[in-house]
């Protein structure tokens, strides 16, 4: 097993999220907003979708070196499971569900005749003999078959779930009395599992989203990009939070010269156009990596270092907004009676900050973390377009768009890379946005008053 830097940080993040969740489990003030989230159908549905994406991202974050093969490239568990997708490479572009290549080339028939035609694909639709007649019925059959199998799996899982629930719950509760939130969660997961299963089943016969310029399966690329998006969206906040919380609270609580210095720091940082700061820093990393070649022998390690660094830089450029919010909130809290009372009772300043101020600004932190997530995922695409995003070898939606953009001028156009990137990105960002709205509704005291 090989642990990359971002892997380690993801585990760290996961553990800390679990620990925080555990410690807050029985706190009454957390119960109310959580109940509110669980009552919202949209909130639950988007949460399930997000968890599905996170699951894929986590599978993609367990890396190891395969022992049986000759090549020494590091792969993840997801790569291992998707070996078929990964290794079924064609020569160049091919459309989704196509049996032939995108461009014509010279074909030499077994009898020696030479003609100019579309070559059959090496893997996509190989099982069909007469593509002109059999392709559409075969696709329809395979889709139906995949969906039916997916639904059967769904039914099985739901039955297992119901029995487990029945066994675990107290005697007397009915087998089928489900709350709305459980129903929503079940329905959404059932749909996801059925569709995912169907896609996996189809992808062993066809290239569901076509292939790209070097013949790589686009479906595989889109799935691999999930991890990149998640890493950027979450690890950046990990960098951002300590800076924003410490500086924001200190500035608001102490005022005076501390406040002046901190305000000066964040206004200065804010004044520099973020894109240019990122560009300069990425150039810096490139120079560093060029100077220390022996430390970055593997492509994946190089790409990972750059991804990590991008998170760092985005964190440094993004903490100022949250910092300002926290400062304003702390300014307000400082004058509250309970803080004054604590001070009058002689509670130490550190203790006041930790016990009285920090817990009361946490809702702002939480809201801004979920709100930032989607904008970071979107920012990745733009940064990759400017060539200052993730490494060109990293799978990311930005890189997919960037590569596909140049092919828009071709006739007939190569639309599938772009569509796949759009579909996956849109699903993730939409789910994140909807979830962020629910969280904001639940945790923002101004909104929950309604």
């Amino acid at each position, binding site marked *: 097993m090989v642990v990359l830097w971002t892997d380690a940080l993801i585990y760290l993040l996961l553990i800390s999220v679990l620990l925080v969740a555990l410690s807050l489990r029985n706190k009454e003030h957390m119960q109310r907003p959580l109940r509110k989230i669980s009552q919202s159908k949209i909130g639950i549905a988007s949460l399930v979708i997000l968890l599905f994406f996170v699951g894929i991202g986590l599978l993609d974050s367990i890396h190891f070196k395969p022992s049986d093969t000759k090549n020494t490239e590091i792969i993840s568990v997801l790569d291992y499971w998707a070996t078929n997708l990964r290794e079924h490479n064609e020569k160049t572009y091919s459309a989704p569900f196509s049996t032939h290549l995108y461009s014509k080339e010279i074909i030499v028939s077994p009898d020696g005749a030479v003609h100019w035609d579309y070559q059959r694909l090496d893997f996509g639709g190989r099982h069909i003999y007469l593509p002109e007649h059999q392709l559409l019925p075969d696709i329809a059959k395979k889709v139906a078959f995949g969906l039916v199998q997916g639904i059967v799996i769904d039914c099985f899982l739901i039955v297992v779930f119901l029995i487990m629930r029945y066994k675990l719950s107290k005697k007397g509760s009915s087998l089928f009395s489900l709350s709305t939130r459980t129903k929503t969660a079940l329905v959404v997961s059932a749909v996801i599992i059925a569709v995912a299963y169907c896609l996996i089943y189809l992808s062993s016969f066809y290239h569901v989203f076509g292939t790209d310029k070097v013949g790589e399966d686009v479906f595989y690329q889109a799935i691999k990009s999930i991890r990149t998006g998640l890493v950027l969206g979450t690890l950046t906040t990990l960098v951002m939070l300590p800076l924003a919380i410490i500086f924001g609270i200190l500035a608001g609580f102490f005022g005076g010269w501390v406040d002046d210095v901190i305000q000066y720091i964040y206004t*200065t940082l804010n004044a520099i156009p973020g894109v240019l700061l990122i560009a300069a820093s990425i150039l810096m990393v490139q120079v560093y990596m060029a100077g220390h070649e022996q430390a970055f022998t593997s492509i994946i390690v190089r790409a990972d270092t750059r991804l990590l660094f991008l998170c760092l830089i985005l964190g440094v450029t993004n903490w100022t907004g949250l910092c300002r919010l926290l400062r304003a909130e702390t300014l307000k809290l400082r004058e509250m009676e309970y803080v004054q009372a604590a001070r009058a009772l002689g509670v130490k300043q550190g203790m006041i900050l930790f016990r009285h101020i920090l817990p009361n600004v946490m809702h702002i932190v939480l809201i801004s973390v979920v709100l930032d997530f989607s904008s970071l995922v979107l920012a990745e695409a733009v940064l990759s377009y400017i060539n200052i995003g993730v490494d060109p070898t990293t799978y990311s939606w930005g890189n997919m768009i960037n590569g596909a953009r140049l092919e*828009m001028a071709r006739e007939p156009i190569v639309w599938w890379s772009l569509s796949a990137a759009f579909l996956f990105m849109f699903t993730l960002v939409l789910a994140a946005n909807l979830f962020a709205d629910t969280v904001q509704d639940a945790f923002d005291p101004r909104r929950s008053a309604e």
Partner: protein
Amino acid sequence: MIQYIIRRFLYAIPLLIGVNILTFVLFFVVNSPDDMARMQLGQKRVTEQSINNWKQQHGYNLPLLWNAEAQDQEKVTQTIFYQKSVGLFLFRFGVSDSGRNIGADIQERMWPSLALALPTLVLGLIVDISLALMMVLYRNSYIERTGLVLCVVLLSISSLFYIIGGQFIFAKVLKWVPISGYDDGFSAIKFLLLPIIIGVFSGSGSGVRWYRTLFLEEVEKDYVRTARAKGLTETQALFKHVLPNALIPILTGVVVILPLLFMGSLIMESFFSIPGLGSYTLDAINSQDFAIVRSMVFLGSVLYVFGLLLTDISYTWVDPRVRLS
């Protein structure tokens, strides 16, 4: 009032010094001129001699902060810091690594940027505010709900897709406007039309939502209830009372970004090949021309600080409650 403005103005000076020092550290200390030369000349097989030549040519062969070999005053002036960074304060941007005069380039290129950014901002404001007002007017109806759903959908789509999709549909398939390019004078309109519309459209999701929350906050207030109690219709109350009051935070929010409009938009300009400052910056990043990037960083921060100053002034101007102390 004047005293207040002077004080805010003086506050801008340490900010700009901070920015200047930060860029200096980033571009000369962390990335040494040797690294830059290697970047420009290609990583492999670069001789010491060619690096020195390159540094000599571009004036990077001086010490960073203190020139011990020079005479008197030149101990300070004959350094990279003085030559490359201090001049920025007087808007002496110097020469780019490819030998062009940056100051002249900026002056020439800021107008196309402005021609794209200003209409996008104004049109965007008008569209967003009217849609938000409509949603507030018909709140708790299906219009508001569909509007909100549409907003979330719109803001979940990457701006790249708006540009690629818009360019494909309106320029390539329908051929209403040219795909990209730019022209001087009024003939530029046909090139600017599509980017402006795309810019307005892609920003409308988050814009409408933001203005809607602003208006909703205002609608709940007592003075609106009083206005309604007086017998004003909902529409009258909204346009006569809510809109003028909500315009204060909107306008002050706009003032901050007004100077930054000169900087242009990176992706919009490069997709539509508009020769503005955005595409200038992007080209500089891609060709690793540090001199231009440095100048743009400084220009950007000057404009930002200027925007802050304008905001402070506009606050005191529109909102009499703001004290000047």
